[in-house]
């Protein structure tokens, strides 16, 4: 501490998703750039109690600040309490906790992303049509819910548009998106568009649509800006749009934020990272074939 070196602990709830591991990497990379910041990363592997004890572990190692990447976890009051008691700052990235005290949060406006997608699709389907929605799940995942809510807030009232929500969840993964899309297609062969709560599911859905020979008929809208999705958009496929939810940017900004706080700066409590709409026109600008996510 005297030598100006700072240690920042990262508590990941679940690393085994490309988005989350991408964010973890971005945090580490940003720390390296700074030179005097060391990062200790932990993974709770989806266990809320383990997240709490990982946080306690980090505190016992006397880290200067903690970054929590909560993923599908809705909140962690006890962990936040422990950090507060230890008098350390905590920065949340991506996931804003529903309850509990934190120092600062950096993440997307999920509802806004949904609205943006909704508006794009409304324009695309000027003549109306059926739009499928594929959710990630489970039912308690408010990030996904906010995105779908955003889409619905626009398309639900749009002229001539009907929404069909797949009953089953796509589990945020490509194979999940594929099989949910297959079921959706069996019942609604007349879909004109599909929205998925993230790109991974859209990529699976795109396969199912192609297999069903409906690539000409159905357009796709996603969220995240995952490499494969950006490429598909850039290549001019029926994958038309995604709302950028940049793991790299959020991760590195999260690290910056923690460092600023340790430096004594007065910081904004909640920072929304803008989620620009990515389409064929601007995809090249965001697509980095060597990026980690």
């Amino acid at each position: 501490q005297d030598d100006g070196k700072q240690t920042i602990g990262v508590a990941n709830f679940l690393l085994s998703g490309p988005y989350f591991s991408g964010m973890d990497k971005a945090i580490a990379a940003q720390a390296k750039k700074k030179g005097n910041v060391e990062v200790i990363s932990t993974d709770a592997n989806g266990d809320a109690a383990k997240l709490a004890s990982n946080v306690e572990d980090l505190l016992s190692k006397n880290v200067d600040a903690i970054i929590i990447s909560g993923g599908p976890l809705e909140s962690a009051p006890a962990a936040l309490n422990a950090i507060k008691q230890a008098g350390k700052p905590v920065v949340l990235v991506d996931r804003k906790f529903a309850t509990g005290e934190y120092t600062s949060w950096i993440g997307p406006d999920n509802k806004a992303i949904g609205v943006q997608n909704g508006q794009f699709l409304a324009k695309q389907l000027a003549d109306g049509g059926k739009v499928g929605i594929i959710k990630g799940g489970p039912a308690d995942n408010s990030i996904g819910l906010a995105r779908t809510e955003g889409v619905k807030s626009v398309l639900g009232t749009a002229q001539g548009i009907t929404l069909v929500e797949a009953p089953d969840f796509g589990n945020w993964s490509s194979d999940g998106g594929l099989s949910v899309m297959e079921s959706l297609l069996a019942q609604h062969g007349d879909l004109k568009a599909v929205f998925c709560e993230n790109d991974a599911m859209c990529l699976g859905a795109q396969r199912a649509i192609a297999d069903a020979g409906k690539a000409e008929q159905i357009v796709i809208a996603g969220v995240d800006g995952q490499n494969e999705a950006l490429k598909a958009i850039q290549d001019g496929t029926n994958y038309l749009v995604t709302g950028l939810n940049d793991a790299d940017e959020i991760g590195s900004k999260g690290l910056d934020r923690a460092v600023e706080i340790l430096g004594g700066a007065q910081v904004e409590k909640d920072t929304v990272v803008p989620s620009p709409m990515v389409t064929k026109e601007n995809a090249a600008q965001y697509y980095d074939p060597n990026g980690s996510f």
Partner: protein
Amino acid sequence: MTVASPRLVLRGRDITAEAISAAVIVLLVVVAATTSDTFLTPVNLTNLLKQMVTTGLLAFGMLVVILTGGIDLSVGSVVAFSGILAAGLSAGLPIPVAMVVGVAAGIAFGLVNGTLVARFGLAPFVVTLASLTTIRGLAFVYSEVPVTPSDPAFLSLGSAMLGPIPLITVIMAVVFAAGGVFLSRTPAGRSIIAIGGNAETVRLAGINVRKHVILAYAISGACAGLAGVVLASRVGIAQPSVGVAFELDAIAACVIGGASLAGGRGSVRATFGGVLVLVLINNLLNLYGVQSFWQQVLKGLIIIVVILVRRK
């Protein structure tokens, strides 16, 4: 703990399990066909044919292991590893070679599982629970992020059709047919079944028990590897996180088909029936638009009802 009920016997073979499975399937199909407009549409039927492949392949491999009195919990992780390996290697190797290497990786994991069980006498449940963890870790170590094969030919295995039937469904059917012959007509197959009944008796009959147990796990590994390659090819993206809890459906299919987890008892045909039951349940609940968590509630209850009905 229960009293034996009457059995159906055909040419000396007890076909009660098969008959009940068949009845349950017919019932599900009739209910589905009469209550849903979508069920009998070509699109939905093709969906069904595709959706049974992963569970089907895993269930056959699982059955072979279960027959020895073992269990293979690692199959979901093998699916992930083999898929991502094949996808990754397809960048530098001819696609068929990459896919064969993916399946071979599954066989290798099976050989390790089998050796730990047969050679060192460790409990199959824990061995494969540990390898579930290790192999999942290895899949992420190989690539933390999903791998998308650049050559679109990687997708052809997963999307090709033989007439109205998806190629991968044909592959699964071939596995089941060959597996049926293997278990009923070859010395190795008969030995595997007998080992599950009484390994010591089999050993004293001069049969190499270890070799056959290892073979059983290798078969399961091969099926899981194949399922992983097929899935990656079908989705077009190989993910290290895929396949979590796949072992559960595979085991459920075997048991719905009347296999005994104590070993020695189980039928290829009835296991296939078990796969159909699971796939039909999922399909039906989706067609009816049942909410995801109510689907879970009902799926569990239906499984209970099915095994209550087909109970000996």
